[in-house]
C-alpha cells in the first residue's frame, strides 16, 4: 500500500512530521528537555547512594528516562487538543476529512520520536556517571519498552478526549496528575512487589490499573534490576500492557467521537477561552 494513497497514513505521517520537526528543527530543545528528568533522576540516584544501596541507582535512572515520556504524554498528548482548540486548530481537524485517530497516532509517534533523544541522554549520562549494575535481556527490554510506550500514549489519547471538555482546568489537572501518578506508578522506586514496595497491597492493586506502573515493573524485571519477588511475571505484564493499549486506544476513539458530537449539538466545539 502506498503512503500517498491512504488518507489515514498521510494524516498520521503529516502530524508525526510536524511534531518531530518541532523538536529536531531546534536541537537546543533536546538540551532543554533533558534538564528536569536528568536532575531529578540524578538527585534520587544520589539519595540511593548516600543513604543506602548504590545498586538501586538504576531505579532512579530508569525513572528519569520514563518520566520524560510521561511528561510528554501529559503535556503534549493529553492537553494538546485543548490547546489546539484554543488556537483554532481543532476546528480545522474536525472540518477536514482527516481521521482523528490518525492525528492522535501521528501525534503519539511524533511525541515518542521527539522525546527519545532527551530520554536517551538521561540514560546515557546516568549510565556513564553511576554505572548501575544491570543484567538486561534485550529482546524483552525492547518488547516491554515498546508496549509500555504504546499503552502510555494510548492513555494520553484517552485523556486528550477528556481534556477537550475542559478549558483552563486542563493545565491544573496536568499539574495535579503529574506527581501523584509518578508516585504510585513507582517511577523512581518499585511501588509494586512484595518485600520491596513501601505501599500496602490495596495501593499496589489500585496502582496496577495505570499502564506506567505495569510498564515500570516490567522494565525493571527485563533490565535485571535487583528485585526480590516480581509483582507479576514479566510476560504476563507484557500481555497486560498490550491489552491496556488496545482498550485505551478504542476508548479514546469512542470518547472523542462522543465529545465531538456533543460539541456540535451544544455549539461548544469552537468555544475557546473558558
Amino acid at each position: 500500500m502506498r503512503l500517498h494513497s491512504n488518507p489515514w497514513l498521510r494524516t498520521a505521517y503529516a502530524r508525526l512530521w510536524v511534531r518531530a520537526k518541532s523538536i529536531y528543527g531546534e536541537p537546543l530543545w533536546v538540551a532543554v528537555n533533558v534538564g528536569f528528568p536528568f536532575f531529578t533522576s540524578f538527585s534520587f540516584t544520589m539519595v540511593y547512594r548516600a543513604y543506602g544501596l548504590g545498586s538501586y541507582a538504576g531505579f532512579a535512572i530508569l525513572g528519569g528516562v520514563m518520566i520524560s515520556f510521561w511528561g510528554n504524554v501529559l503535556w503534549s498528548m493529553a492537553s494538546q487538543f485543548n490547546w489546539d482548540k484554543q488556537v483554532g486548530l481543532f476546528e480545522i481537524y474536525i472540518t477536514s476529512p482527516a481521521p482523528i485517530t490518525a492525528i492522535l497516532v501521528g501525534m503519539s509517534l511524533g511525541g515518542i520520536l521527539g522525546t527519545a533523544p532527551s530520554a536517551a541522554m538521561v540514560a546515557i549520562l546516568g549510565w556513564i556517571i553511576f554505572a548501575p549494575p544491570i543484567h538486561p535481556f534485550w529482546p524483552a527490554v525492547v518488547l516491554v519498552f515498546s508496549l509500555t510506550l504504546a499503552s502510555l500514549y494510548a492513555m494520553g489519547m484517552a485523556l486528550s478526549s477528556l481534556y477537550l471538555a475542559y478549558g483552563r482546568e486542563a493545565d491544573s489537572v496536568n499539574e495535579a496528575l503529574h506527581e501523584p501518578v509518578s508516585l504510585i506508578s513507582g517511577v523512581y522506586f518499585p511501588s509494586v512487589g512484595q518485600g520491596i514496595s513501601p505501599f500496602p497491597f490495596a495501593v499496589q492493586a489500585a496502582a496496577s490499573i495505570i499502564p506506567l506502573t505495569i510498564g515500570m515493573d516490567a522494565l525493571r524485571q527485563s533490565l535485571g534490576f535487583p528485585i526480590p519477588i516480581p509483582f507479576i511475571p514479566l510476560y504476563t505484564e507484557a500481555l497486560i500492557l498490550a491489552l491496556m493499549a488496545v482498550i485505551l486506544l478504542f476508548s479514546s476513539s469512542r470518547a472523542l467521537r462522543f465529545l465531538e458530537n456533543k460539541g456540535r449539538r451544544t455549539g461548544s466545539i469552537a468555544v475557546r477561552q473558558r
Partner: protein
Amino acid sequence: MSILRSIVASVRVGWYREFNWTNPFLGFSMRTVGPLAGVIAASSVYYVGASGAGKFNPSQLAFILIGAALYAHVAAYSWVPTLAIAEGKWTYVFPQVYISPHSSLPYLTGRTLASFASSTLTVIVSLVLSFYVLSSIFHTSIPFVVTPLSVSLLFLAMLVNIFAALGLGLLLSAYALFATKFEWALPTYVAGLLMVFSEALFPVSFLPHPVSDVANVLPFTEFMRASRQAMIQGGDVYSYFSYLGLAVLGGIILLALGFLAFRYAENRARRLGVIDKKTA
C-alpha cells in the same frame, strides 16, 4: 505608596489567576496534591534504598521530608515572574502592565508574593499530611519538633527566602523578556538544578568539588539548613540563626543581581522592541 498599592493589586491578580478557574477548595486541593506526592515519592525512594541496605534512620527521613517539601515550595513560586511575563505576552497583559508607570517590578513582586502565600499553605498541608502518611506506612516515628517556636522559626526562614527566590525569578525574567522559545521550559530546568544543589534531598558534600563548594554557599542551601534546624530534633538556635543570616546575605545579593539584570534587560528589550514579541 503607589508601589505598595501596585504590589497589593498584583497579589490579587496572582490569586485570581491561580484559583479563579474553580472553587477555592478544589483549586487549593489540586495545588497541594503535587507537592504532597513529591514529598512522599522522595521519602519512599529513601525508604526503599535505606531499608534494602538495613540502614533506615528516622532522622534521615525527616531530613528528606523537610527538604522535599521546601524544595517544592521554592520551585513553585520562584518561577512565577517568568510565567507572568511569558503568559502575559500571550494574553497581552504584560505589555499593558509595562506601559503603565513603574509597574513591571511591583507587578512581578506581587505575583511572586501571591504564589508564595498559596505555596506556603500547600507546603504546610503537604508536610502535615506526609508526616502522618509516612509515619503510618513506614511504621516509624519521624523526629519533628512541632512547637509554636519551631513553626514560627520555619515561617521566618520561609519569609527570608523570598529574597533569594525573587532574585532568581527576576534573573529568569530578564531572559523571558527576550525569549520566544524556551521560556516555558527554563524554570523546570532551574527547578531540577535546585533539587541537586540546594541540599533538598542529600547533603551537598556528596557532590564533587568544586560543585559542592558553590552549592554550599547558595542561599537556598542555607534556607534548607535553617529550616531543618528549626523543625528536626537536635537542631539548635545558634546554628539556625547562623544559617538564616547566611540565607539573608545570599538572598540580598541574588535579589540585587536579579534587580539589576531585570532593569538592564527591560531597557534593552524596549530599545529592541521585543516587550510584546511572542514568536521568533
